[in-house]
């Protein structure tokens, strides 16, 4: 493990202890994954593919039944890395964002000196500076997710582990939450972004696709739907059962017409961008 690797999973498998006797019960098998400092990894997979389990194992939340080795660079304290999950309402304590983050820090034994300032700083970082004393029930789902993220930041989590945090949000809120997390990544935060939605990926994202507990694809998102030849339905995305978005279909047709694209766009914006860059 090099200095820049924050998290490394070597040949990790997992089955619930009671069911570990049979090979078919494995929820994760043979996972190799290394996360470098400051990296963004998109983890993609359909329901039941094992992506949430992988995240929990990586965070150190699963204590029994995990085989293989998991290294966390900042695991000196042995503290698990926090994960933010789907349900905006489920993980919050207290009646305001401020109370939630302060309580979290206190429970974790963070030094009392400057604790409130750290909590407030984290809330400002996720754009909730003006809303930190507002009752939770008046916040939207996306804002609640940002509160949970602020909790991770304030607790100085080595990386953000985000498990489908936009699944319950509407498109507008999804864009806002994505935007905030992308900005934090640009400022150096390591992010592991679990999702089912192709539209949240950027072409340059290191993308890991899971299926039946295994990693079946690991490359940039822009090559997820790359076909080996025009009209050959053999792209990794198709193989793993993802429905190609409109932009992908247009890109395939363009390639069939002889227009070589540097990446296969997943959204309308990316399509417009890749076409425009082609002309220049």
């Amino acid at each position, binding site marked *: 493990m090099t200095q820049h690797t924050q998290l490394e999973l070597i040949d990790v498998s997992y089955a619930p202890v009671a069911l570990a006797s049979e090979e078919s019960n494995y929820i994760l098998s043979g996972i190799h994954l290394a996360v470098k400092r400051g990296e963004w990894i998109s983890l993609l997979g359909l329901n039941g593919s094992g992506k949430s389990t992988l995240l929990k194992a990586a965070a150190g939340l699963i204590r029994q039944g995990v085989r293989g080795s998991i290294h966390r660079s900042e695991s000196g304290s042995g503290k698990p890395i926090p994960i933010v999950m789907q349900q905006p309402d489920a993980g919050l304590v*207290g009646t305001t964002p401020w109370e939630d983050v302060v309580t979290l*820090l206190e429970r974790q034994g963070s030094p009392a000196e400057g604790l409130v300032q750290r909590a407030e700083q984290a809330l400002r970082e996720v754009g909730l500076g003006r809303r930190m004393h507002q009752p939770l029930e008046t916040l939207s789902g996306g804002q609640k997710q940002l509160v949970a993220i602020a909790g991770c930041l304030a607790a100085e989590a080595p990386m953000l582990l985000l498990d489908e945090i936009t699944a319950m949000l509407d498109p507008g*809120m999804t864009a806002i939450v994505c935007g905030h997390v992308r900005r934090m990544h640009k400022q150096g935060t390591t992010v592991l972004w679990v999702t089912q939605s192709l539209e949240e990926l950027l072409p340059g994202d290191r993308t890991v696709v899971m299926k039946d507990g295994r990693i079946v694809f690991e490359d940039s998102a822009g090559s997820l739907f790359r076909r080996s030849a025009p009209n050959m339905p053999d792209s990794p995305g198709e193989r793993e059962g993802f429905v190609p978005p409109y932009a992908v279909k247009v890109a395939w047709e363009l390639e069939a017409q002889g227009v070589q694209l540097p990446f296969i766009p997943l959204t309308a914006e990316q399509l*417009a961008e890749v076409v425009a860059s082609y002309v220049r």
Partner: protein
Amino acid sequence: MSADWILSNVSVLAPGDREKHLLKDISLRINSGQIILLLGHNGAGKSTLLETLAGLREPESGSIRLGEEHLWTGKGKKRLNGTVLKRIGIALQQSESQWFASTVREELAFSLRPYQVEGEEAESRMQAAMMSVGLDHAELARDPWTLSGGQQRRLAIACLLACEPDWLLLDEPTAGLDTEGIQRLTGMLSACRASGRGAIVATHDLEALLPLADGLIIVRDGLAFEEAPAEAVHALGSASPQALLAEKLLIGKGMLDAAETACAAEAAGLWQPPEELAKRLAAGLLGNERIAAPKLPIAAAIEEVEQEPQEPLESLYRLDADGSCQASGTVMASDSKKPEDKFDPRALIAAYLILSAGLLSLNSMPKLAIGALIAGACAMPFRRFLIPLLPIIRAFFYFSLVFILIGAVSLQPLELQWSKSEPLAIRMIQLGLIMVIGMPLLALMSPIRLQRGLEQTLGWLTRLKVPIHSLSLLVMLIFRFIPLLMREWGRFAQIVKARGKSTARGNAIPLRLLPYLFIPYIRAILRMAESMADALEARGFGQPAERTTQGFKLIFAPADGWLLLAAIAACAIMLTARMWL
């Protein structure tokens, strides 16, 4: 026969807040036999509008008609019109968790009950409904909870279809469905329209549903606007289907000809198929003198994608300066101190105990009158916290009255004797007064400050191995959990009322429907507790540190001193009254 919806000047208020409008002055006409999409971000009022149409929310003003029939009838005290209710079927969000019966057949029968269809007719309706959502007839004998998530959603819709309503009202029907499920749903909606029925669908999934729509209603900040499906992209911005957005962006960049695109799109329906668009683009890219530039390295192209500022689309999903959604919740001025932070919880509790002791010492009716005056004066500044609790005060009053009456009965001779029940009356009045002054207490302290008060006062108990810190976290969790429990109750109550075609107003649930509410409710709260435990553990609440810390401490402020002084003075007056009167 199917009929049009006619809404005129409909306004709906937020429950418990007479100032806040969820819907403002909505006038709409929705023609029969059409599929209408309701669009808008979460919290804009889509669900409220659907629930209002279904009679689950009472409009504050305005009228709602289905054809000639009014949804709310009666002059003074309004009542719901059962015949209108029977002509509509509503599926609320997450209505797949509503099952109470042990078989699918019983669930369908429950939905059919208000229609008084029985025997052959009922059986054939059930089968037809199951078929049109793609569920096998053999599933009728299964336990609904053993169906997969997608099948449960389809069953929820089958329950509506069995009733053969003129209008289907669906809230987010595609959420959580896979591609196949979505195709089935759109097929079912088209079939409904073909048979002359209409549907109003609240959704974000335009990719799937926009091609079906006869019209759009856009809900924003409680207002509703009608829009033609072809114009959707202007209103929807980044939430519009990829195809529309791509056309718009490409036209914006001069890569596509606007007029030509409009033609092509019109010929093909709402948008052109990907092949068409690609052909048009390729012609521009490969033809003319515009020879392909050397490929950009991926990294550079990505950089551009990221940095390209978003076009300021006039969109439903607008952002305000700090990047949060404008319409969701109002921003409170951060410098205004919350009412609950004014006093130290320890001072509040001490003052409360002192006042209670004073009230308990009053031992006759005239003395209690003085006590009532003092209690009233104490509660006066906090009266707005008391308003939502008035039903409880009223209930206590009636309850006491019954007790006092029973206490006054003497059997030989049969008569009411005041002297017999006077001690009881005094007790009940004391308790009533203590209750009233206690009511604002919870509103005056936030859970975290109450927790801190507990820790600072009783922290020494940890040395005796009393887990004060865990207990105080429990206090906070309870505060968080209770509103969620009440919300779930409200949600299931609405589902059951909609299925039972109950004409009860407001939050009241007819007794006959209660049994159908309990089972799904208990299941839902168990599941909620599980997901909360999961999420709390994942966020790091699961592993408490050896020593928890305190980021802030409560400090006794002058206001607290005044509060205590006032309590002591009031108590002194009451004690004096007891001595001298």
